């Protein structure tokens, strides 16, 4: 017997869309509203989004990777690292047609939470929203990275203390 998938009531979530394509705003808003999300704001570039976040307390940001002016990667980097960041811990879903490994790795390394390849469908958007909700991650801040813990799985059998050779050099 297969288990019926579970759903959430998203009504109280606030979502910010960052994309330079008006059409994408319409599409994403339509999908999000059909999931019950009423509070959706949208911006056309990362710079506007930083300003918007000062008064719009987004629970989740959905941003395109390639946007004009301040692009998606620079936007997330700034959001995660700037001293005056309005919301450095907010989960970010990066949406893009660039699915090559280099782009996915670059997005991961600036601190995105989830990656969603275009074309967007309602089901895949729902799955990413659920992933953000069901798997909250620790936030890691180092000299070279700020963002959600990039390790998706914890291995309790790992003898440690740290998984990377470079970690050992910083132990006090």
């Amino acid at each position, binding site marked *: 017997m297969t288990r*019926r*998938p*579970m*759903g*959430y*009531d*998203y009504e*109280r*979530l606030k979502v910010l869309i960052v994309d330079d*394509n*008006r*059409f*994408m705003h*319409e*599409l994403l808003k*339509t*999908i999000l*509203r*059909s*999931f019950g999300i009423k509070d959706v704001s949208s911006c056309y570039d990362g710079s506007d989004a930083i300003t918007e976040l000062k008064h719009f307390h987004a*629970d*989740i940001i959905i941003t395109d990777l*390639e946007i004009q002016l301040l692009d998606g990667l620079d936007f997330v980097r700034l959001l995660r690292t700037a001293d005056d960041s309005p919301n450095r*811990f*907010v*989960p970010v879903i990066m949406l*893009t*047609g660039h699915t090559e490994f280099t782009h996915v790795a670059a997005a991961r390394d600036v601190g995105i939470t989830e990656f969603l390849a*275009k*074309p*967007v*469908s*309602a*089901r895949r958007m*729902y799955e990413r929203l659920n992933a*953000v*909700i*069901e798997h*909250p*991650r*620790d*936030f*890691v*801040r*180092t*000299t070279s990275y700020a963002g959600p*813990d990039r390790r998706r799985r914890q291995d309790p059998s790992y003898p440690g*203390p*740290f998984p990377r050779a470079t*970690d050992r050099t*910083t*132990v*006090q």
Partner: protein
Amino acid sequence: MTRSASEIIPCPTDLRTKVRPPRPLDPTIFERADAEAATLTPDYLSSVSNSLEGMGRNLARLRSGGGGDPDTLKALFRGAHDIKGHAGSFNYPLLGEVMGSLCHYLRDRPAIDARGVKIVETHMRAAHLVVSRDIKGMGGAKGPELLAELAQLLGADAQHT
């Protein structure tokens, strides 16, 4: 034991507190959402037509300027990339594939020659065809044939250069 150069903040954003406890998913939720999104299709097609017109102007610029303007090529790439990104969401995956092929050709290309201009033209014609005939899905048997022709064109160009 601590790490001097790193800091770990335990789950600073736990949105489970903002959503009500999970319940069995309404099986119609995706159909309803996709149906809502489908109401945007006429608007989408009109935006594609506008984008293709803009790309046509860039193509004309390339023709007159000998294909060597990197900004025009970048604008063409961007137009194709935008159309590709949205096409699948509106059940025009063939259009997405055609524009994806053009993106593949234009990516990181600082200049193109007369042969390149022809390649761009052919892709644009194919895109216009899909839009004007409202070819949804992969276009039946003709769709893969069209894509094979485009792939052949790019293959021949790669051999030449």
